[in-house]
């Protein structure tokens, strides 16, 4: 091999095969990153919505414990979009040495996902938009 030929070979670019392989690897990485990104954003949104829902529920419990009626609570608190519904159910618990005390079961249902439609062929969403998560607390109101 002459010195000139060797120099030309050394200075040549990547072969087509090399380029194609590199591109394939790159595309895979980008696809994985995209999927991971959607998952992370979805997870972050679910966490945020969970915290917002729980804060709302705690506000409800606090107002209820200080004696505000359930209808007034609805009027007092700003509407929280992530909360699907609130259900109050009167309950009692027996306390040995005291008797029966009044409790109220407060059930909250909220939508953890921010998706507005179901995922499908033309819609790529994180989570199910119709999924509901339920959380119950039992609150005692001071009496008298």
């Amino acid at each position, binding site marked *: 091999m002459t010195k000139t030929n060797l120099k030309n070979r050394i200075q040549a670019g990547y072969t087509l095969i090399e380029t194609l392989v590199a591109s394939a690897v790159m595309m895979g990485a980008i696809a994985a990153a995209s999927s991971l990104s959607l998952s992370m954003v979805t997870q*972050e949104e679910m*966490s945020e919505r969970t915290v917002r829902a729980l804060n709302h529920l705690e506000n409800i*419990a606090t107002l209820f414990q200080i004696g505000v009626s359930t209808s007034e609570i609805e009027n007092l608190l700003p509407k929280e979009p992530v909360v699907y519904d609130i259900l109050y159910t009167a309950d009692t*618990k027996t306390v040995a040495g005291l008797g029966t005390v009044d409790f109220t079961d407060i059930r909250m249902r909220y939508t953890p996902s921010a998706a507005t439609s179901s995922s499908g062929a033309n819609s790529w969403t994180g989570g199910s938009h119709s999924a509901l998560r339920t959380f119950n607390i*039992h609150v005692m109101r001071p009496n008298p």
Partner: protein
Amino acid sequence: MKSNPHNQQSTAHGSVLVVALVISAIGTLGVLATISVIGARSNLAEAQFDGLTRRIVFNNSKALAREVIYKNYLTDDVILTADQTYTAGTSPIWGSVTIGAFDKSAFTFSSTARSHPTGASPIRAFSRDLTVQIGDGANQYPFQYQMRSYNPALAGDLLSIHPTPEVASEQMRISGDLKVKGRAVFWKGDYYQDASSTMRSLEVILPATNAPKLVLENPDEDAVKPSNYINFVQTVGRVPGGNHYKGELDIVNNSTSGANSYFQRLAAIGGHVSADGQVGATDALGPATVSATGNDSTLIAAILNGSITESTLVGLLASNSPLSSNVIQVLLNRVPAVSDSYLLPLLNSQAPLPDDIIIALANPSVSVGDATRRTILNNTGYSFISDGQGTVSLSLQSLYLPNLLLSNVTQLIIEGQTNTTAADDASLLQPRVIAVKNPDNLLLTTVRLEGLTNQRRVALAISQRGVLDGADLIDISGDPATAGTNKTRFIFNSPSPYIQWKLLTELEGVSSEWDVTAVSTVTLFGGIRADHSIRVEGGTLTLDRETDTDFIESLVSRNAWIETYR
């Protein structure tokens, strides 16, 4: 080494690869960090469920502690010899509290009267400390509770109007010229008053939501609005079959709440005297009686001889001193009656008068002038006299006056002090409690308050609960002649037109009419706690605060409530 183009090209390829790897590594680390943060955030969000649950349980436990203390401990005279745990729910537990042991109930605890500077509750009140462990489902946290109690009038609530249990619809009236130099507290708002009069008080509290039906002014006649302070839930003790926190009064003779009931508490303390208005009794310094002598028949014949002059008769009797009780009884009942000017020196010369004569003299039906009667009785050194016919007389200047539990009393005569020296002396005497509980259908109609003043601290508690039978009995406004019959008239009689009386009054089941006609203006240092109408007649009644609370604060009835400190 000589430069070689091939080696130079290889070096260039390697550099690109290293840079790519480094960038990839950094990117990977970034992605991993982001995933880690998102994961931590998710864990935090999930942990909020447990956190919220624990906070709810913690607040439930505080509510449970309040309910336990109010229901089990505050209204009753109970102690706790060992810590007691109360739990709401099982697996999961939605509230848990442990009440620490304590040895005195709220109503009986009198050792520590702490000051409370916030103004939300009385500045001074007895405070029974209570350590309470509040649970959150995982741990317990110690809180300091205080079961507090104090008499409202001594705390500044000079007029306390409580709900009336007898009638469903309240028709209480506060009428006449009543001024309150403190706070007036209405446990319920369902009351009204005469249109011609105005309620005057420095402050007014209307705990109920009812719109005030009073024209509210301060003593300077400037309009005042009801205070809207936060109020602690208070109890006056256990009431049979009732809600213990509505404020119904049952503090005179209530066996279900003995710690806050005068008859039961004074009996427990001891040293009191129980007296029956239908049984003659006194504690004067003389003998029980003076036996008959040989010349009694002669003396009695002289007394009954209408032709003998008073001076001759009195001279005869004086020369035969000491006279027997029998002779004096005949003398007191003589018709026509012996003039006070002759009777007074004669009876004074018989000192110490025997008890049976003192009892006879105390009866208002005996034909002796009021002034003479009081002078004679005061000279006997009595502290109390029951005449056996419903009248009980008390002397507030007597060192020996005990706490009195009275029954079957239709008239009560309370003698204050007749001069300022005696008043100064009386201010140093121990405070006393006079409690009256009559049986059904026997009404204490009159309380006569005699004397220039009274500077001895005294609490007067009257219960007429069994006498009431209808709403008309509590409406004593308007024409006194047609007003309801179930009322006790407080009649002031003094040589001074402006008098000061130390008297803390608690009236249960009876309306009160305060007749100040004879004196025009009375300042009552103490207060009035009542659950029926109050009417002031013939002048002004001003309620002022009793500032000397020593000893009396542990004698009188109380309200109780709880407060929490971390």
